[in-house]
């Protein structure tokens, strides 16, 4: 338990020490998205009848920030310690592979949630707060952050170099988050692309998260919870198996 707590504390310290980069900067990025998209699209897009576009956009941006930063935290921390070689200190220690996974994911989730909270707070001035079902908000934020934190562990273990990690980020994480209904409702897409979106797990994270704000969504939050929950279990199982075998970490 002390091993887990130490690793968790170390991982939190790591991003907190450079909090300007890891927490403040993503908040500013999200705010820019909000300014640009709401300005350009507010008069053209109406997703739900009584929800203004800017209000609709906020939960999507918050969740996107949570997910991207959770992924960034575990993946960049792992690849850095691999590249510098300091990963050896964790590998020498009697820390179970479960504790290892849990610490990385918990720290990643914490950073994701901090950034999400920051985005939410700065956007309050634009839209005011609609919190129809706060428990759903919390459930999807936590679960989404844990899924992406776990995916970050996989990416960090797999990648040998920073550009491989960048590829993972650009060709998997970015498309999945952008094509998930952050900026629009999938109902506004042609049927084919609607179908495609429904194969994207991130769609369910955002849709369920948004339900917590407006009590309206493209699919039922229970369905979203089931999809995201299954994703989490599968990815966690895969990650634990990779760590147990020492894939790419122990030769």
């Amino acid at each position, binding site marked *: 338990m002390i091993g887990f707590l130490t690793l968790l*504390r170390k991982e939190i310290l790591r991003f907190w020490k450079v909090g300007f980069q890891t927490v403040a900067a993503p908040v500013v990025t999200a705010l820019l998205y909000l300014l640009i998209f709401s300005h350009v699209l507010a008069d053209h897009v109406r997703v739900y009848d009584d929800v203004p576009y800017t209000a609709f956009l906020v939960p999507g941006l918050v969740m996107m920030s949570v997910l991207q930063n959770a992924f960034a935290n575990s993946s960049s921390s792992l690849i850095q310690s691999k590249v510098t*070689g300091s990963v050896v200190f964790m590998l020498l220690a*009697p820390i179970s592979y479960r504790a290892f996974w849990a610490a990385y994911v918990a720290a990643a989730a914490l950073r994701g949630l901090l950034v999400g909270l920051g985005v939410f707070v700065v956007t309050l001035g634009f839209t005011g707060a609609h919190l129809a079902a706060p428990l759903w908000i919390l459930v999807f934020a936590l679960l989404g952050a844990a899924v992406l934190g776990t995916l970050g562990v996989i990416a960090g273990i797999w990648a040998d170099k920073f550009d491989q990690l960048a590829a993972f980020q650009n060709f998997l994480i970015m498309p999945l988050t952008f094509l998930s209904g952050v900026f629009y409702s999938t109902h506004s897409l042609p049927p084919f692309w609607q179908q495609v979106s429904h194969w994207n797990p991130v769609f369910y994270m955002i849709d369920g998260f948004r339900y917590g704000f407006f009590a309206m969504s493209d699919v039922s939050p229970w369905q979203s919870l089931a999809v995201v929950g299954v994703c989490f279990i599968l990815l966690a199982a895969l990650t634990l198996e990779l760590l147990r075998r020492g894939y790419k970490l122990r030769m």
Partner: protein
Amino acid sequence: MVPALRVVGVAKRFGVTQALAGIDLEVAQGDFFGLLGPNGAGKTTLISALAGLVRADAGHLEVMGHDVQADYRQARLKLGVVPQELVFDPFFSVRQTLRIQSGYYGIRHNDDWIDEILANLDLTGKAEDNMRSLSGGMKRRVLVAQALVHKPPVIVLDEPTAGVDVELRQGLWRFIRRLNGEGHTIVLTTHYLEEAEANCSRIAMMKAGRVVALDTTAKLLARFGGGTTSLEDAFMRVMKEAA
């Protein structure tokens, strides 16, 4: 008494390189043991296998009776390893590094022992400095410190004195000998054979993944003439015969 280290039939191949070609070795508790051999002999690979950083293709390894795979947490708890590569986490100060390392081994509030290690390695003045700002020799000494935070019964040092200046080398050996005197088993690799001759009671010589000589230091020296023979002479003879 269980041996500090037990290595039975261990083999490891990297691609076409047979890094370990069947190693059998036992190190008794309390020994000061030298692991010698030319570059590429397999010393680091063997140490990595003991530490669980490398998985052996065949055979098995124990630390204080604990199998390094099946019982990895106990095995790692009993082992302190100073890696050969000069690695560090640039995010932290020396003290933070050592506190974190203590926590990994389940130890809180370790500052008394940390201060003692720092004093013995002449790092007290650097305790609050960032790892990045240390010289190479200082970083190497922090690596030694990190291996000692949990007072492991078995301490393995992979070239601990590479790049460390003469005076500090003396201090380091005094400290390691003291730990040995207090009952810690020491395993050491070095290319400075006079260090091994002065400190080690038993020595294994490796070449191309095999143990080619294994005996007490005195007997190894005697076998090659005794008297004025140095360990370096003995080493050269063993390597030639093994060719």
